[in-house]
């Protein structure tokens, strides 16, 4: 029998003057997605209700109660037998095209740790003067660049709206939690590519604390529905949006028209840098770790690497590293298979493009996957930064000194985001500093590029701070104070995911 999934959430006690009608979309696998058809009258009642619930709950309850409720919800989701997680497991591979292994092992098992009470970023505002050089924050380091010119402040936002991109699972949950920390009511536009998880998460809050949940509305609508967007923007104190270039253009215009501050997170470019010190007996381990960054979310995230720069002068050459990477890509891809929607065409395109170059005698070497699950390309001469076709297609390029990289990527400026690194601590700070000046925002230990820590800034701004104040500070983080220890624990994590999964498959 098929499964009908509701993609919306609001207080079920809301009474509308006219019955809400729904559309049903059969997405295959016996799954039907049900979405409401919005009118202004429906939206008015929903927004009034989340504002009222905010007054009744967030403005009267102790912050500790709110935090405890959020913690209880996340404990539910960390339990693999929780019914909401079971529904998500049944439905999300079909909805998103990601493999069940990716959703469960890389998604749920790590994502809900970010939202644990003890990990939540509860200091709303860091003071840039304390971070003129890289200084301790969370279990890593941050540095402030730029000047604290404040362009927007509202310390008591009543309604915050979120427009979530569909490339990464779980963003809607993160947004709901962040809003509750600043006592704001929330509406979330869930992405058309993944309209399911947001409503499931809101329902799990309702199971724990109905009034808290009723400060939230999950609204599935298409981004070309101008009536809905115009109305929601007119009723919001702030909008946080993630998306591509088209979304940036449209939403910026809309926000300007309604004079609502917009915290936008748009297209980014991320890559990996490996220093020669790690290209010795550790080279294979580093290749193992790099595979996770390439495979995670099938390279669809803004934090996914598009290129790998490998420093020359180590015992293992960049070309040899590319070969090791290919071997390890095969192993990791068996444990974390690519999803069903995930670009065989892109892999084949990459293959034929570079096959031509290779046969023409150019210094290119292709390391292909027989199953078109992935493609590693070693390219010796082309030092230009180029976007990858993604879907697990990765280029490896040699670099004679890692300090050449910041100069090379400077033209990308604010498009730079995450740099996955295996660099010894004594060389890491100058590299991170130069990358920060170039525009990058997050320096993360290799294999952790897609694993945002709760305390880290996001595109140069702290996610909580961004909800009440916008300023000219550009924050840059390094996710660890101890690179060797972080690599050791990353390797344990990788092996616990990949090796255990392969062992399970063998049985």
């Amino acid at each position, binding site marked *: 029998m098929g499964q009908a999934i509701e993609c919306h959430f609001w207080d079920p006690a809301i009474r509308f003057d006219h019955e809400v009608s729904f559309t049903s979309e059969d997405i295959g696998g016996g799954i039907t997605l049900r979405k409401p058809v919005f009118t202004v009258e429906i939206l008015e009642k929903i927004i009034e209700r989340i504002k009222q619930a905010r007054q009744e709950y967030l403005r009267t309850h102790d*912050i*500790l109660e709110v935090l405890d409720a959020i913690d209880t919800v996340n404990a539910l989701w960390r339990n693999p037998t929780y019914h909401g997680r079971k529904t998500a497991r049944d439905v999300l591979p079909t909805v998103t095209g990601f493999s069940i292994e990716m959703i469960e092992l890389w998604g749920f098992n790590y994502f809900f740790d970010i939202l644990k009470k003890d990990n939540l970023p509860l*200091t*709303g505002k860091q*003071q840039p003067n304390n971070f003129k050089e890289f200084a301790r924050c969370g279990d890593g380091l941050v540095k402030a660049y730029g000047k604290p010119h404040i362009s927007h402040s509202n*310390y008591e936002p009543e309604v915050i709206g979120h427009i979530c991109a569909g490339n990464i699972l779980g963003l809607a949950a993160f947004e709901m939690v962040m809003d509750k920390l*600043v*006592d704001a009511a929330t509406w979330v536009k869930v992405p058309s590519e993944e309209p399911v998880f947001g409503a499931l998460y809101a329902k799990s809050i309702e199971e724990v604390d109905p009034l808290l949940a009723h400060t939230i509305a999950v609204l599935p609508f298409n981004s070309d529905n101008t009536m809905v967007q115009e109305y929601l923007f007119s009723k919001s104190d702030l909008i946080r949006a993630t998306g591509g270039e088209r979304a940036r253009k449209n939403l910026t215009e809309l926000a300007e028209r309604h004079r609502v501050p917009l915290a936008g997170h748009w297209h980014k470019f991320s890559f990996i840098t490996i220093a020669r010190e790690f290209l010795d007996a550790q080279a294979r381990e580093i290749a193992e770790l790099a595979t996770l960054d390439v495979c995670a979310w099938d390279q669809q995230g803004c934090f996914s690497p598009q290129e790998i720069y490998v420093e020359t002068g180590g015992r293992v050459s960049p070309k040899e590293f590319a070969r090791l990477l290919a071997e390890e890509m095969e192993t990791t891809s068996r444990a974390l298979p690519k999803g069903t929607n995930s670009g065989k065409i892109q892999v084949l395109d990459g293959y034929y493009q570079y096959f031509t170059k290779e046969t023409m005698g150019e210094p290119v070497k292709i390391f292909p996957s027989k199953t078109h699950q992935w493609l590693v390309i070693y390219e010796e001469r082309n030092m230009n930064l180029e976007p990858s076709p993604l879907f697990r297609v990765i280029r490896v390029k040699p670099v004679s000194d890692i300090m050449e990289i910041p100069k090379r990527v400077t033209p990308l400026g604010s498009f730079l985001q995450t740099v996955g690194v295996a660099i010894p601590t004594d060389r890491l700070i100058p590299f991170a500093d130069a990358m920060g000046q170039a525009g990058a925002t997050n320096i993360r230990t290799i294999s952790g590029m897609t694993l945002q820590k709760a305390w880290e800034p996001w595109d140069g701004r702290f996610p909580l*701070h961004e909800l009440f104040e916008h300023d000219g500070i550009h924050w840059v983080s390094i996710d660890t104070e101890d690179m060797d220890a972080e690599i050791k624990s990353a390797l344990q994590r990788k092996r616990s995911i990949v090796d255990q999964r392969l062992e399970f498959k063998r049985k």
Partner: protein
Amino acid sequence: MSIVRFPSDEWIKIFKEELNKSTAYQEVAKDWEGDFLFVITPDEELKIETMFYIDLWHGKCRDAYLVKGEKQAKFVFKGPYSNWKKVIRKELDPIRGLIRGMFTVDGDSRVILDQAKAAQELVNTASKIPVVF
């Protein structure tokens, strides 16, 4: 209790006395160790930065005074005068104020956040002192 001006040395001395009378504060702050500087930064109504020193130790206030000159403490809790007024009138929970960026803290903020109930009792005590702003 007579009406006193906030901020003033008189106010912080009364605050110390009232805190030491509060059994509720003694109970919730019995594990607390650490001194504070409460820094009131100028805004439209207050022209000069004002700073209180307050030494809190296992549910008791050992010392409290208006600082003249330099002073160091384990924690520095800082915010504009208008936000301090909201706290004293019980219109703003200081922990929420910290989360929402209305106050900043120097020192391990997680330790303060773990003592949210003690912070609330500090506010309850402060709110009982009749003040003129």
